[in-house]
């Protein structure tokens, strides 16, 4: 079976690096983007199997990215895991309504648990 591809859209360099490291170790091909615009571009070009999306991002915020991903025929079906530190119930609700698969608050999860959730979301 071919390796699955995951796109990480995250602007904090250390977080991006840790995600890249662990996902690569887990056998995924990892693409990274540090802002919303680049994230969208990579998503359209490579059509990844899953997208990890931060909400507070330069150029285009995560909500906009999510909206555009869900509006586009090519990217509509890709599961999207929100990975953020925003934890207001309004934000959670908005992201889920826009079509996010899972919503994770970074500070509340160990890295290994994030990976479990990612694997779960890909299987769905």
């Amino acid at each position, binding site marked *: 079976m071919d390796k699955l591809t995951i796109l990480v859209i995250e602007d904090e360099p250390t*977080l991006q690096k840790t995600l890249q490291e662990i996902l690569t170790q887990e056998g995924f091909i990892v693409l990274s983007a540090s802002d919303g615009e680049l994230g969208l571009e990579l998503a359209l070009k490579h059509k990844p199997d899953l997208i990890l999306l931060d909400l507070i991002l330069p150029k285009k915020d995560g909500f906009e990215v999510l909206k555009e991903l869900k509006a586009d025929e090519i990217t509509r079906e890709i599961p999207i895991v929100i990975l953020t530190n925003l934890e*207001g119930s309004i934000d959670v609700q908005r992201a889920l309504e826009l079509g996010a698969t899972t919503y994770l608050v970074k500070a509340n999860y160990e890295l290994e648990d994030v990976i479990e959730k990612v694997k779960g979301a890909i299987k769905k």
Partner: protein
Amino acid sequence: MKKILAQLNFIKGCRAYGVELWQCPSFLFIIIGVIIIGSMLLTYFIAQFFIELEEIIIGLVTIETIVLLIVDFSIVRSFEVLALTSKMKSEFVSIVSHQLKTPLSSVKWSLNLLLNGRLGVLSRKQIEYLEGVKQSTDKTIELVSDLLSVSRIEEGKIKIKQQPLRLEELVAKEIKEMRTFIKAQNVQIDFKSIEKLPQVQTDHQLIRTVIQNLLNNAVQYIGNKKGLIKIELRKKNNAFLLFSVQDNGVGIPKHQQNRVFQKFFRADNVLRYKTVGTGLGLFISKAIIESCGGKIWFKSKEDVGTTFYFTLPIK
């Protein structure tokens, strides 16, 4: 009586607000009172001399009314200033907490990678130190989360989800999750449901926070003896579920019992400097339980122990 006198001491009250005297509502109210009484007497005496000249009396009353309006206006303004200050403080906490969480998650995840051996093998000593860093990071994250909850409570942003919940299952799960901590503190926990209990409609995550806080306090404040904690669940008047957690710990000094649910309060008992805590847990718990339509209270005696209770409506 003491309380009434303390309230009358407006200068102290104004200092606590951190505003100037002329901006302080309690001071301005006293000024209003003095003006009203003074102007009534003044009008009475002047009116005696000018009983025939209505214009003068009308003029006097008008001037007094204008003065009162000006004072009223500054009272309203000063209330607005106070409200704004409090709102800014809440927003400040919220923004700072959120900004803190990103670098903290970054530290946490990097430590995860290091400690799980994913970046190569570490020596025992290196692991030991990194475990220490991990614990401190987790504590800091917890504190930041607590501060965020408090600011959310104060902004009135706390939202209750209505989900069916079997409270006895949640309690059992929490006890299980805390078993390492419980064992380390030499504490035995007895948990029983007195009868078959109905489901409640409430917010899992929030009620979980309350139970964690209460259990954590019970275990933490046992002291040097063999701890025994009794947790019970029962129905109350068929309208509520009643949760209670009783410990045989150090207890809360009587003179401080009225402050237990205040923000940042930590009891001045023998364990104050031997335990860690922010003094936010019970403040948050009270806000949660009350938002869910229940009540929370406690009984405590120094050296004998403390029992905390809360109720949740069955619906």
